[in-house]
């Protein structure tokens, strides 16, 4: 095994999860005693977000699983990725993920929980995409991120509504508010949104498809995220909100329907796969469905069942994912029909896998047996549809027994095969599965302690009231035991007949063609097509379109404003008999303006524009603005000279537009022009009382020492304007200088020389 200093450092990282585990274990007495420790700090209190943490039985159980399995996964990853250049960053990401998960299960604030929730999505994105040079990994990571992200934002809205309706964002404070929250008209919205978050995260139908895709991730990730921790976050959420949102018929219906469908579908899909990790992924989906299903039943018994199943599943599924990784690592194979007889080469691994498989199949004395017993008990005692629910449970469990055989027994039994690059797994790889499988056995043998010390506080927290959970290996000859027997027998039969059933099953599976995976892909492609289409239309590149849209927007908004104002433009006075020179000037402006537009000669256009300017200057002179007139005259002269100097080196006016385009442009321009005139007339109809002029007229001479009030305004009263104005001139001059003096590209439209380092400049 390659060992380096980096690897050595990586090995010590295990101390972090170990430390957390030890610390959590130390909290057990307090939790069992019903006094959950809490830690609270201020944060963004304005938004109701505080750093509130609490370790009650439910959170503690999850936290312990997270940190304990985390420690094993770190050890395992040290073996699995030994010598990998990015091992350390991988482990750091794993630990970040662990931190986020701990946050989710210990947070006692809705939004704080959400924050950690999102962090798990992001870190899992990085982890699923660890083999980032493969496109499949990148796609799978994105898919998981988008699906859980979508659920996440829904949940954010849901949690916010919940907090607003409940008057607090502290989860423990909401527990007593269930009645008022469920009476809120927003309850259905809250429910749907929160469930969306939980269902996407916990891979419930129809969002389950991201989980098999995420099997692109390396085995430590699957073992950690996709069996024991992240996918259980949704379950945690449902358990946590059972005393707040639960009990309502809508809650029960949604959980039973979605959970039941997921339970059956996952098990059904699992038995037809050949890829070991996919089999495990689908069976995980199935169990996640079972957990939702049980929480949907909602009785204390069912909650107890859910928590026991969750624990059992975490232990055996973590084992099996690690085992799958070992098989792949040692043989390079993941397909079950290519793996067999490995029990001789790796006896310890086979032992662990065997124990896990028996737990999964629900055989005594393993924890899986106990959890299945409680499962059946819970469905049988369900307040409604007990028989139907039990039938669903039994069917799914029969399938899962077969899956256990496929995933855990098949590779180790049968004829021994030789593998080209076989190498035996080291202790780091085997430690994890052995410990987890052993724990499954140990807890199966200590049901009384488990029930009293662990499940009781967790179930009490999930139910929102004190509850004593009793677990036992032997209940006597009960109907549940009979069902267990039936399950195992049916499963064994199915396993035995499976090779013959495969073709039929493959035909039944229409999910590949029309399933949610396809919906996701089609949706993504459709969104991209829509985006490309709308961008092409909107950002067309044609300036005339841009300006048209802007003008129509302006006209539309201002026109709307005028219209809702009632369009009551008072009749204006015409201001008495017009002076002939005024009329003449207006006529000149109008005619010259039209000429500037209509002419086909550049020179004529510039001259006409100049004529407009000079006529405007004279108008200023007529109406008491000599300074304006002077400036306008001077500027207009300068502009005409400048235009002539520049324009005569440009091509003549070309008629580029079609008559239709011109008509359209006239309509656009006219609409905008008329609207502006309308607003102008509406304003002119209201007498103006200048608030500024009288004071300026009074004070210009005495205070500012100037008789020309306009000039005094420019250099004194509003001197800052002028300072800005001359700045504009200075900048324009610099710009003109730069544009004229900078070297022109060699030829028009020449392609850029590629050696240009900045890419934007010569």
């Amino acid at each position, binding site marked *: 095994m390659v060992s380096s200093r980096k690897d050595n450092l990586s090995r010590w990282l295990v101390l972090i999860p170990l430390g957390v585990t030890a610390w959590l274990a130390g909290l057990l007495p307090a939790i069992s005693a019903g006094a959950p420790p809490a830690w609270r700090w201020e944060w963004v209190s304005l938004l109701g977000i505080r750093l509130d943490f609490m370790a009650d039985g439910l959170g503690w159980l999850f936290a312990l699983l997270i940190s304990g399995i985390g420690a094993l996964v770190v050890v395992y990853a040290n073996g699995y990725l030994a010598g990998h250049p990015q091992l350390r960053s991988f482990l750091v990401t794993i630990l970040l993920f662990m931190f986020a998960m701990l946050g989710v299960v210990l947070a006692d604030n809705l939004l704080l929980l959400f924050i950690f929730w999102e962090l798990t999505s992001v870190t899992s994105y990085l982890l699923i995409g660890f083999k980032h040079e493969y496109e499949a990994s990148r796609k799978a990571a994105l898919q998981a991120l988008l699906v859980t992200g979508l659920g996440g934002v829904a949940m954010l809205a849901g949690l916010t509504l919940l907090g607003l309706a409940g008057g607090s964002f502290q989860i423990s404070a909401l527990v007593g508010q269930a009645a008022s929250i469920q009476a809120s008209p927003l309850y259905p919205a809250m429910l749907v949104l929160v469930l969306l978050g939980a269902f996407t995260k916990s891979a419930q139908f129809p969002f389950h498809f991201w989980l098999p895709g995420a099997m692109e991730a390396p085995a430590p990730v699957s073992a950690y995220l996709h069996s024991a921790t992240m996918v259980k976050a949704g379950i945690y959420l449902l358990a946590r909100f059972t005393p707040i949102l639960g009990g309502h018929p809508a809650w029960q219906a949604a959980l039973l329907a979605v959970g039941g469908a997921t339970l059956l579908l996952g098990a059904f899909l699992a038995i037809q796969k050949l890829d070991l990790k996919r089999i495990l992924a689908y069976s995980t989906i199935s169990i996640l469905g079972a957990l939702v299903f049980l929480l949907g039943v909602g009785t204390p018994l069912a909650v107890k069942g859910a928590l026991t199943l969750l624990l059992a599943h975490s232990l055996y599924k973590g084992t099996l994912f690690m085992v799958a990784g070992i098989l792949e690592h040692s043989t390079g194979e993941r397909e079950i029909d290519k793996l067999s007889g490995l029990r001789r080469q790796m006896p310890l691994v086979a032992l662990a896998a065997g124990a896990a498989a028996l737990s999964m199949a629900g055989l005594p004395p393993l924890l899986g047996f106990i959890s299945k017993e409680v499962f059946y008990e819970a469905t049988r005692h369900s307040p409604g549809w007990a028989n139907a629910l039990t039938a669903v449970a039994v069917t799914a469990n029969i399938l899962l027994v077969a899956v256990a055989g496929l995933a855990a027994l098949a590779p180790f039994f049968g004829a021994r095969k030789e593998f080209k690059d076989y190498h035996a797994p080291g202790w780091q790889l085997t430690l994890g599965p052995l410990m987890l499988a052993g724990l499954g056995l140990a807890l199966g043998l200590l049901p009384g302690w488990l029930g009293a010390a662990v499940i009781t506080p967790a179930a009490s927290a999930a139910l929102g009231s004190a509850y004593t959970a009793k677990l036992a290996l032997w209940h006597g000859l009960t109907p549940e035991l009979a069902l267990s027997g039936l399950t195992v027998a049916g499963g064994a039969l199915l396993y035995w007949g499976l090779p013959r059933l495969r073709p039929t099953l493959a035909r039944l599976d229409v999910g590949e063609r029309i399933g949610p995976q396809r919906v996701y892909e089609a949706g993504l492609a459709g969104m991209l097509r829509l985006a490309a289409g709308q961008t092409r239309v909107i950002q*067309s*590149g044609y300036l*005339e379109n841009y*300006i048209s849209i802007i*003008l129509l927007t302006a006209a539309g908004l201002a026109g709307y404003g005028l219209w809702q104002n009632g369009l009551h433009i008072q009749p204006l006075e015409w*201001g008495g008999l017009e002076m002939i020179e005024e009329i003449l000037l207006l006529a000149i402006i*109008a005619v010259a*303006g039209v000429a*500037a537009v209509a002419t086909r000669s550049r020179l004529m256009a510039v001259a006409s*524009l100049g004529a407009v*300017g000079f006529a405007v200057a004279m*108008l*200023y002179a*007529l109406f*008491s*603005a*000599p300074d*304006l007139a002077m*400036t306008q005259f001077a*500027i207009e002269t300068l502009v005409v000279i*400048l235009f002539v100097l*520049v*324009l005569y080196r*440009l*091509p003549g*006016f070309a008629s*580029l*537009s079609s008559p239709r385009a011109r008509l359209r*442009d006239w309509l656009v*321009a006219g609409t*905008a*022009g008329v609207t*502006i*005139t309308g607003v*102008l007339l509406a304003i*002119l109809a209201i007498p103006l009382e*200048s608030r500024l*002029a009288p004071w*300026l*007229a*009074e004070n*210009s*001479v*005495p205070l500012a020492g100037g*008789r020309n*009030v306009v000039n005094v*305004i420019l250099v004194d009263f*509003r001197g800052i*304007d*002028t300072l800005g104005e001359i700045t504009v*001139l200075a900048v*324009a001059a610099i*710009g*003109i200088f730069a*544009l*004229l003096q900078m070297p*022109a*590209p060699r030829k*028009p439209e020449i392609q850029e020389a*590629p050696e240009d380092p900045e890419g934007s400049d010569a």
Partner: protein
Amino acid sequence: MTVLLAVVIGLLYTLGFYMLLRRSIVKLIIGLGLLGHAVNLLVFLAGRLTAGVPPVVPLGESALSAPYADPIPQALILTAIVIGFGVQAFAVVLIKRTYEVLGTDDLNQMVSTDREPPPGEDEE
């Protein structure tokens, strides 16, 4: 007069906008010029017209006596004219540069920065 001028201002706006919608970059600059006049006249008219009484205090007096033209719009327009001049002068030189660099005066030929080039063509 007020109404007549308002109508002429509307006409100038229309003409200016119309020229801004042309495909020729040369016409665009004419449009900017017309639009500038339209806006200045609008500010002038919005400040109301007063004939024959410039806001200059007669020698020896200390204040303007009514009626007098409102000096504020005049000062605003003066600033706007000068700013407009700077901007227009820059714009006309930019147009010249545009024509030299692109070799066309047709705005419909200037769509490259709005659209993504195919891969392999770094657009600069």
